[in-house]
Structure formats: structure tokens, C-alpha cells
């Protein structure tokens, strides 16, 4: 069974249709890149998979391990193993990062009927994951993303991926706002989490990120549809020729 299956998905925001019948199949262990120009619907797809309010699905379906994902609340999806790394992670003043991570992990474990992690158990796990991502402990004491640099915010997203161990990770424009060094650190963190059972969907405007996170499949989106799919070489082709050819095709 596929891990994630998007079938002929049609989505509206207010009165405007953004996705016009998008299909995508993701199997365990695969890394898919979704590329496309601004406004092609890439972020909408990531939001709808995660369950963000404000989108109306007017057709099609999304199955996660064969279950109807669209029937689940965002927290149910998270507990099942769907993770969205936000393009713009929000700042939450007054909520210490460590406390947030602990509460979130235990909420997911509770939903899955697993035992709650005690503070010492959790700290051990969190510090180990943070160390592997070069995240200083001091950062974990601060409010969630408060005063974090762009790179720190993205590393915090990847830290959450490492702790929650999701089955599908959707990385929404992970490269936005990052310089090349920060990008490399973030990409290394993501690559370390690649595994046989885990799939990733990397959404990006630029080919650059795919030099660091090398995908198995590349899909080109334009005007709310996937207009071309191929292997990793498709990304290089796009870099050379641009998106214009697909705008006409769509």
C-alpha cells in the first residue's frame, strides 16, 4: 500500500480554485520533490495535507496508509505520522521550546495509545536529537522560535521531525530565507532522517535545495496540476530552461 496517495485533488480558497485535480503517489523510503513557479499551488498542497483550516476540498481524496486523511483533524494527522515543516515557522512567546516539544510528543504518543515520556526520559531524547543538529541547549529554553534566526527556525523544524519520527515529512520551501551554510546544515539534518520506512515530499521553488537533498522523483506543478514527472535530472533541466514552458502546457 502507498504511504500517501493524493488522487485528483481539487481545492478552493474562498471562491477560487487553486488545485484542479492533482495526483501524487508516495511510497515508503521515497523522496519526492515538487517544483513549480510561485502561485502554482505547491504550498496549498502542503497545507491541505496537514489540515490547515481555510481550504475547501471540492473533489478527490488524500489517503494515508489507505485511510481518509481529509476526515482527520490536524492533530490526528500528526499522531498518525504526517509532519509539515513550515515555510514560516511561527513564533510563540511564553511557550518554552522544550516544554512545547514535550507536550507535543506526549500528545501524539497518547493519541497512539503509547506511554507518556517522563521529563528525564524526554530530556535525554531531546538533547540527543538537538546535539546531532548542532542546536545549543540554550535555544531550547527560549520561547518557540522567538528570536531565532531563519536557520535556527528551520533547524527547530527538523528537530521536531527527529523527535516525532513521522512517516511522511512535507518540507515546505525549506530553503526560503536561508544562506548557503544554513541550508547545508538543514539539509544534512533532513538527510540523516531519510530511511526505508519514511517518505519525504520536498517543496521548493529552486533547484538549489535538491543539490543537498537529492530526490528520487521530481514533479513539476503549474497552475494547480502536476504537469510533468521524472527523475532527479528533471530538476536540472528546469534549472536550465525555467518554468515558462510549463506555464503554457498547463
Amino acid at each position, binding site marked *: 500500500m502507498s504511504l500517501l496517495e493524493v488522487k485528483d485533488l481539487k481545492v478552493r480558497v474562498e471562491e477560487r480554485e487553486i488545485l484542479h485535480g492533482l495526483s501524487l503517489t508516495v511510497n515508503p523510503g521515497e523522496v519526492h520533490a515538487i517544483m513549480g513557479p510561485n502561485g502554482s499551488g505547491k504550498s496549498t498542497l502542503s497545507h491541505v495535507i496537514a489540515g490547515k483550516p481555510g481550504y475547501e476540498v471540492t473533489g478527490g481524496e488524500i489517503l494515508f496508509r489507505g485511510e481518509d486523511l481529509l476526515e482527520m483533524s490536524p492533530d490526528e494527522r500528526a499522531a498518525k505520522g504526517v509532519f509539515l515543516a513550515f515555510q514560516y515557522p511561527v513564533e*510563540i*512567546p511564553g511557550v518554552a521550546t522544550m516544554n512545547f516539544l514535550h507536550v507535543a510528543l506526549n500528545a501524539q504518543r497518547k493519541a497512539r495509545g503509547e506511554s507518556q515520556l517522563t521529563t528525564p526520559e524526554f530530556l535525554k531524547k531531546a538533547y540527543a536529537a538537538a546535539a546531532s543538529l548542532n542546536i545549543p541547549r540554550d535555544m531550547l529554553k527560549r520561547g518557540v522560535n522567538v528570536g531565532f534566526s531563519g536557520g535556527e527556525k528551520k533547524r527547530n523544524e527538523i528537530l521536531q521531525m527527529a523527535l516525532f519520527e513521522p512517516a511522511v515529512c512535507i518540507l515546505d520551501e525549506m530553503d526560503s530565507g536561508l544562506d548557503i551554510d544554513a541550508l547545508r546544515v538543514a539539509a544534512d539534518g533532513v538527510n540523516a532522517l531519510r530511511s526505508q520506512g519514511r517518505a519525504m515530499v520536498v517543496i521548493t521553488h529552486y533547484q538549489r535545495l535538491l543539490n543537498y537533498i537529492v530526490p528520487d522523483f521530481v514533479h513539476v506543478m503549474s497552475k494547480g496540476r502536476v504537469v510533468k514527472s521524472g527523475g532527479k535530472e528533471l530538476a536540472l533541466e528546469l534549472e536550465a530552461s525555467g518554468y515558462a514552458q510549463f506555464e503554457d502546457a498547463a
Partner: protein
Amino acid sequence: MNVALVKNETGSALSDSFAIARDRLPGTGKVAAAREAAFAAYAQAGLPHRRIEDWKYTDLRALMREVLPLAPAPDTAEFSRAASAAKLHAIDGVRRLVLVDGVFAPKLSELGGLEKGLVIRTLREALETGDAALQALLFTPDNANPMVALNSAMMTDGVVIDVADGVVLTQPLQIVHIASGTVPAAMFTRSLLRLGKDAGATLVESYIAAEGAKAYQVHDSLIISIGNNSRLDHVRLNEDGRDASNISSGVVSLGAHAHFNTFGMMSGAGVSRYQATIAFAGEGSRVETNGVNLLNGKQHADTTLFMDHAVPHCDSREIFRAVVDDRAHSVFQGRIIVRPHAQKTDAKMMTRALLLSDDAEADNKPELEIFADDVTCGHGATTGALDESLLFYLRARGLSEKEAQALLIQAFVGEAIESIVNDGLRELAIAAAQRWLEARG
């Protein structure tokens, strides 16, 4: 509605109860005369109503309807229920002073081993045997505010605390008000804290209900004077019963180079009003006030602060937060006056309200009256719902809607709680906020 009739009804019922209670009210001579005058002032005005500007959001005639008769002195059973209730706000390393149904409870209080320079007596003692100067001080608040006048007329007990010059208390003092009576009744208390020069203290006031306490009314007041170069940290936590009313007044004056840091949180009582006047009497002093209302159901809570910058070079900061759910109603009235010679005043006031339901209401009334020309004054207010993008982020990480809301509310309130310096008191405030969140479900 016939206002005159309403006033007469409440007025005369209370006149009877004042007459009945008189024998139980401590003090004779000047004290008794001051009570009579205060009662006359109250009887003339009656319960404040919405056509009085200062009470327009908190119409006590509609919300409280009447002043209940004076609570009977607690019996053994009531003291024992109060003792169990006291545990809710018990913290280590704090000197507890307990008032049960408005009467000082020596057995529940810790009066042994007083630090040098600390004197504690009861209001009853002070009114019966205290010197004339102290008695006059206890009648400091004038009778212009009817609820203060009522409190002056009826005050039965309380604690009178003196901290000598140069004494910095290491142990916080806690005044615990516990209602335990099984018949609806009112308690009238007044306390006084005099902090000498170069002194320091921490005072916490707790309002709680014993199991089975019936619809009761707390009428309390606190007079504070902070000497030159002294610092007072003050915390108020209200977890009164949901069918209780709590009308409390504060009168605070600061000497020169003094510091008053106060935090108040209302999560209890069906109807409450906390009205405080904070006056700068010496230069170079600073006041920080942090207030929080945590309200749901049909709770109504009013905080009315009057910051009186009468002298130059003083700073005041007021931050007031409200979390309002269901059909609850939060009121904040903040008046700042900068008198003509109070140059270099720096006064700021901020209110932030979080509305969790469509029927929740938060009213803010800032009033700045500035008569000096070289000052920095400002106020701001925000009102809104919880941020949808933050809620979604938390839900995408596995928190349910209620859990996500609770975490954001904790963060909102937590910023205010951070202003409490003492660790134990901070934890007490966090626990009280937690109880409110848990009761929300």
C-alpha cells in the same frame, strides 16, 4: 425602574443589619463615630449602579442586588473546614495569617518566632486598644467611594502589620481569606501594612472558599504605606467560590525611592471588583502592576486602578491581561493623573484581552489626565481571539484544540506571572491558572 425605591430597600435592610451588627464591631468613641459617619455616607449612596461613571460597567445593584448580613463568628466546624481549605494556597516558607469568615483565626495562623522588627496584631485589637494615630490611619480611605465607606463602617477584623525601618523580611507574609459559612453572609475585613524606611517585604493575599461555603460576600480593604527606599512585592490571588462576590479596595502610598511591584489574578468569584489607588508621595519611586483576569461562565470581574503621580520623577507600569470565555465580562479601568508639578513622570498602561467566545466581553477604559508638560505617558489596548496561525502550528504538532488553546493561554498569562519574584508565589499563581484551565475542560 424606580431607583429611589431600590435604594431605600437595600439601604434600610442594611441599616437594620448595621444596627444589629454594631455590638460586634470593635472600637468605641472616635472609632464608633467614624463608623457612623461612614455608614451614613454609604446609606446615602447605596450600592453603586451604572449611572455612576466609575461603576458604569459594574452595576452592583444588578450584579449583587444587596449587601448580605454580617457573617456569624465561625464555630469549630467552620474553623476545621477552613483549615482544610487553607491547603489550596499553602506554600512553604510563608508566614500565614488566616481570616475565617472575616475573623482572625489564631490557631490557623503562624504568629510564633516573629522576625525582629516585625509586629503583627489584629484589626480588632488595633481598633479596641490601639493608639489614636493608628486608629486614624485605619480610617485613611475617605467615604467618597460607597463600597469603601461600607467597609469602614462594618470592618470587623483583619491584620495590622508593621515592619520597622531597616528590616527586610525574608519570609513572605500571607493573608488568607477563607469563607466557610453555610448560610449566605458578608464578611468585612481591613488590613494594614506599614513598611518603614529602607525596609522590604513580600505580601500575598489569598481568597478562597471552604467546601460547602454558601453564596457569600467579601468586602475587604488593604492600606499600604511604603517608606523611603523600601520595596514591597505584593501578590493577590482570588479563587473565591463561583457564587461569591468580592469587593476589595487598596490604598497604597509610596515614599521616595520606593518600589511597589504588584501582581493580581482573578480566577474566582462570580462578581468581583478590585479598586486600588496608588499614590506617589516621594520622588524617584517606581510601581509595576500586573493584572490578570481568567474568566468563564457568567463571571464578572472589574479591576479599577488609579495611579496618582503627585510628585516628579516617578515611573509606573501597568499591564493588564484578560482571558474571557463563555458569557463572562472583564472590566479594566485605568486612570492616571499627573499633577502639575510631577515633571519627568514616566507612566505607561497596557491592556490585552483574549476573547475565547463570541459572547465574551472585555471593556477597557483608560483615562489619562496630564497637568505637567515634561512627561512620558502612554496607553495601549489590544483585544482579539487566539492567533489562528499559532493554533494551527500547535495542532499540526499533535495538540488537540483544547490543548493548543491551553498552551497559548498559559503563555499569555505566564508573561504576567513572570513578574512575581518569589519562586513559591509564582508557582502558586501558575497552579491557580492551571486550575482555571483544567476546569474549562
